[in-house]
Each structure stands twice: as structure tokens, then as C-alpha cells.
């Protein structure tokens, strides 16, 4: 029933503007892949291409062995969940859920039975006779989910399904979506701009920027081993420090900044280190200390209070960095410090 999705080198234009370029993506059977990025990165365009609301100018889209590329949208058999729910306002909750079955010529009694069973699964059986206007946001999104699932589609697609809900409900709903998707084993493509949401719900996440996939990997790899500066920045590695290797001693590598400050890094912890690279660290991974030691000499700027630590703007030679310091010792602006990287919060970026 469920099918793998293959997007094969598609290019898309809005008028003369190219919005997607040579984009390829595979979603395995039963897998949930998220497209994550800021607005305008092409994630919604990708979803609309797969849904059939847009036509690619090049490339192919396949679902299992079926070529979707030129198939009209209403023949694609894809379950879609929209950001604004898109329930039919003039139909009751039950009629909304039964709509797709009606198009599939499922007989009346069977249709109602299946619609009611699906409503029961999303916990809304008692609201079956209401109109959508009488539902809360979370209930509407559950109806939308039931409506997409009841047709037992080989592919489910979500277009920012939770962004109109409040924070608490968003977390409940994403767990619910994940459980239903897992239970049915349906292949799913999930579009969101919320990093936490994407990472928590997905098997793999594609981080998109300007119509390209910057990195497609599991949330763990993306979070710890970003492949490039864009992804590193996206997942919170705010400090990018360009370095050149000056000495190698087994797994130990010594590298210097353009100002000549030296750092010693371990390839056991960080993986292979090329001769020229960028060290990416989170603010948490760069500790400001007045004790000296191996690190980058820097001068502190503005201090802000985070609750668990102090955070400092810092200048190390020509670099603007963000570092954290312990609560026990607030440091004033213009204090000379050493910034010590913590390897667990660092990643090595190869030159691009």
C-alpha cells in the first residue's frame, strides 16, 4: 500500500524566476522526511510539485513505480494536510472525512463506517455532526488529519500543519501525527520552518536554502556534524573560526587562526581534520575564562543573562564570537579572556 517517493532532479520556475534547481530527494517506504528552511527556500514549492498543483520545468517525480510527473493532481492519491486546515466549511466533520471516500465511489454505509472509525482514532467521534466552524484549531487539524488518512494514501504530505496552533498543542499534535504515521507505516513528506518540530518528528531532515537541499540526514547527524557553514549556522553553531593546520601528532592536530592563536584538537573526537578548515562551535561550546590555557585570546563585549549561564559578545582578533561563561563569575566588558572550545559542541567544516 505505502510507497517510496522519488524526486528526481526537478527544476521549477515561477514565471522566469527559478525557485528549485536540480533537486533530488528520496523518501523510503514508511519513512518521514521533513523539508526544513526559512520562507522562500523552496520547501512548499517542492510539496506543491509532488501534490501536482505546480508543474516542474525539468525532472521527474515517482511514487513507487508510478510516474506522477504529468499526472493531474486529483489522480495522484496523496493525503494532504494544510497549514490552515482547509476543511470544507459547508460540510459536517463526518462529511469532511468521508469526502475522499465518496470520490473513490465507496458505497454510503461503508463510507460512513470508515469515516466514523477514523474520527474515533483521532478522538473526535463525538463531534462528527458539527460544522468545522464550531471546532477549535487543534480539533480542526485532527479532522484534516483524519480526512487525509481515511483514503489510505501511499503518501502523506504535511504543509506546516502545526504553525497555527499554540505551543503546547503543537507538541501534543506532533506526537499524535508521528504515532498515526508510524502505525499506518505511511511514507510522509513534512514541510516546516520549525527546527525543533522537524528534528523531533522526522527520520531524516532536508535543510533547504535558495531552492537547494543543503544537507539531508538524520536529526542527530545534522545537529552534531553539519556538513557546511549554512547548516552549521542553522542548527546553532554561531561561531565560525577559520583555521590552518600547522602540526599533526597522531590523532592530535594543532591549528592556528590568521592571528596566530593556536588550538589543539583531537581527530578522535572531531573526525578527520583537513589542512584548512573552519571550526564551528555553539556559544555553549566556547567557554570564556580568565584562567588562561589553550584557546583564543579575546576581549569581552556585552554580557547577557541566560539563566543557566552568562553569554558574552567577544572579539578575538578579526572575529566576532559568542561565548558563554559560568554564573559564578560575571565578567565585565573589556575583560581580556581566553575562549576555550569544548570538542563536544564543535564541528569541523571542510572548505567549500
Amino acid at each position, binding site marked *: 500500500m505505502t510507497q517510496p517517493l522519488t524526486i528526481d532532479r526537478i527544476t521549477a520556475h515561477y514565471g522566469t524566476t527559478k525557485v528549485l534547481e536540480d533537486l533530488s530527494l528520496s523518501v523510503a517506504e514508511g519513512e518521514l522526511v521533513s523539508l526544513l528552511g526559512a520562507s522562500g527556500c523552496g520547501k512548499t514549492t517542492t510539496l506543491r510539485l509532488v501534490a501536482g498543483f505546480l508543474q516542474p520545468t525539468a525532472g521527474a517525480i515517482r511514487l513507487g513505480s508510478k510516474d506522477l510527473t504529468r499526472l493531474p493532481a*486529483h489522480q495522484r492519491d496523496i493525503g*494532504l494536510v494544510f497549514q490552515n486546515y482547509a476543511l470544507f466549511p459547508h460540510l459536517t466533520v463526518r462529511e469532511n472525512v468521508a469526502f475522499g471516500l465518496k470520490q473513490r465511489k465507496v458505497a454510503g454505509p461503508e463510507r460512513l463506517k470508515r469515516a466514523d472509525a477514523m474520527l474515533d482514532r483521532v478522538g473526535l467521534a463525538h463531534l462528527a455532526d458539527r460544522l468545522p466552524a464550531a471546532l477549535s484549531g487543534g480539533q480542526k487539524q485532527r479532522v484534516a488529519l483524519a480526512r487525509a488518512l481515511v483514503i489510505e494514501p501511499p503518501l502523506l504530505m504535511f504543509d506546516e500543519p502545526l504553525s497555527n496552533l499554540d505551543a503546547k498543542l503543537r507538541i501534543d499534535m506532533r506526537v499524535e501525527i508521528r504515532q498515526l504515521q508510524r502505525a499506518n507505516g505511511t511514507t510522509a513528506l513534512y514541510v516546516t520552518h520549525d527546527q525543533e518540530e522537524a528534528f523531533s518528528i522526522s527520520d531524516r531532515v532536508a535543510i533547504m536554502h535558495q531552492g537547494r537541499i543543503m544537507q539531508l540526514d538524520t536529526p542527530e547527524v545534522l545537529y552534531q556534524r553539519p556538513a557546511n557553514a549554512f547548516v552549521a549556522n542553522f542548527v546553532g553553531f554561531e561561531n565560525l573560526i577559520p583555521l590552518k593546520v600547522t602540526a599533526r601528532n597522531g590523532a592530535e592536530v594543532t591549528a592556528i587562526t590568521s592571528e596566530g592563536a593556536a588550538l589543539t584538537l583531537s581527530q578522535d573526537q572531531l573526525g578527520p581534520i583537513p589542512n584548512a578548515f573552519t571550526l564551528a562551535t555553539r556559544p555553549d561550546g566556547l567557554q570564556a575564562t580568565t584562567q588562561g590555557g589553550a584557546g583564543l585570546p579575546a576581549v569581552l563585549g556585552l554580557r547577557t543573562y541566560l539563566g543557566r549561564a552568562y553569554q558574552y559578545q567577544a572579539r578575538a582578533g578579526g572575529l566576532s564570537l559568542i561565548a558563554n561563561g559560568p554564573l559564578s563569575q560575571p565578567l565585565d566588558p573589556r575583560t581580556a579572556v581566553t575562549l576555550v572550545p569544548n570538542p563536544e559542541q564543535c564541528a569541523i567544516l571542510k572548505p567549500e
Partner: protein
Amino acid sequence: MTTRIHPLLILFTLVVYVFLLGPLIIIFGASLSDTTYLTFPPQGLSFRWFQNIWDISAFRRTIVTSLQMAFLGTGIALVIGIPAAYALNRYRVALPAWLSTLFVLPILVPEIVIGFSLLRSVTVQAGVPVWYALLIGHTLLVIPYVIRVVSASLASFDFSIEEAAISLGSPPAKTFFTIVLPNIRSGVIAAFILSFITSINDVSVSLFLTGPGVSTLPIQLLAHMEQFFDPTIASVSVVLMLLTILVMIIVERTLGLAIVAK
């Protein structure tokens, strides 16, 4: 707590009401007069001028023509105008901005100019029979109203609903009838009423396009008044008023007047 209302405000309100309703009350009174000329206050009381509407065959004939024009013209305008409004809203981003202005242009052009240009082109140049030319005129007259009112309804229509239906397997054409149309129903009804009233009341366009044997009620009223200054005119006006009130009551009872004002 009671709010004190300034006496001048009460006076001003009364003046406005008199200004708005006075002429109508005078016509109502005049229609009941037993005299053979229009007069107010009515002298004597008689319904014979209402009977007279039915006795004059020209009135009977032109009422039928007026209703034909209003129903058919509005019907054709809906068939043309609803898809046009749909396309203008659905593809708003892709279409040039002046296009939607073009469709409401007939409201801006003086009706008398439209009437005259239709006479020149459709009747004189193309030789279209009077009844059909009149129908074309009335259709053109009300299309902008249909497009504007239906567009207002479509502006608040969420087109992702349409996409949801398509994704669930409903073909686009069918989706228009099962999903889009039921959700802009109030706009369509409002467009129908507005167009119907515009068509029934029209003088400027009809004046040019009516001809031998084919005329509308307002034109017949003008013609009648030129020959006889009797209270029949007032009676017809009262009947028209009562019909309008009846339509409004039906609308109010079934849909609520708010949709017409929207």
C-alpha cells in the same frame, strides 16, 4: 443608565426621515386618489388606478418584457460573471492588475453612452432584432455587478479548500460545483438580487434599445406619462415598491439582509 439625546439630533433625524420617505408617501397617497390627475393629498379614495394597470395592455406587455430581461439578462450575466470572477481571484497573482479594472469599467462609463453605443453597433450596424439587442444591453449592464459582488465573496474564500478537494480525488471542474459554489452561495444570491433590481429599474440603456412592439416597464411609464398625467403612474410605482419590499422580506427571512449589504 439613560443617555440623554440632544433635541437637535432628534429633529435632524426626523428631517432625514421625511426627506427619504416623504416622496414615497406622497406617491402612495396619490395612487389612491379618485381624480383623473395626479394630486396630493388624495381626493376621494379609489383603487381604480390599480385596476387601470391591468386594463392597459401596454403595461401588461412591458411587465412581461421587463421580467424576461431581468431574469434572462441576470441569468446570462451570472453564467459569464461567476467564472470571470473566479478566474480573476484564483489567478490574481498571475494576471495583470488592470484586467479586473477592465471588468468593472461598464459601471464607470455613463449608462447613456453604453445605450447609445449598443444602438449604433448591435441594432443599427449588426441588425440584431430589438428583443435580442435589449437582452444584450441588460446583460452587459449587470455583468459588472455580478463580477464585483461575487469577487467580494471569493476574496474571503480560501482556495486551499479547493486544493484539498482535488487532492482527495475530486476533478477540478466537479470541485468548482461541489466545493467552491456552495461556499460563495450568498455572494451569488446577492449578485442576483442586485442585478435583477438594476435591470428592472433601468431606463438609460433601455431607452435606446427598445423599439417597435418591444419595451420595458420603466420606458412604458415614461411614454404613458407624456400622454396622460393620471394616477396610474403612481399606482405602478406603488406596485413596484411593494414588489421590492416583498423581495427584501424574502431575502431577510431566508438569508439575512446583511449579505446584500456586504
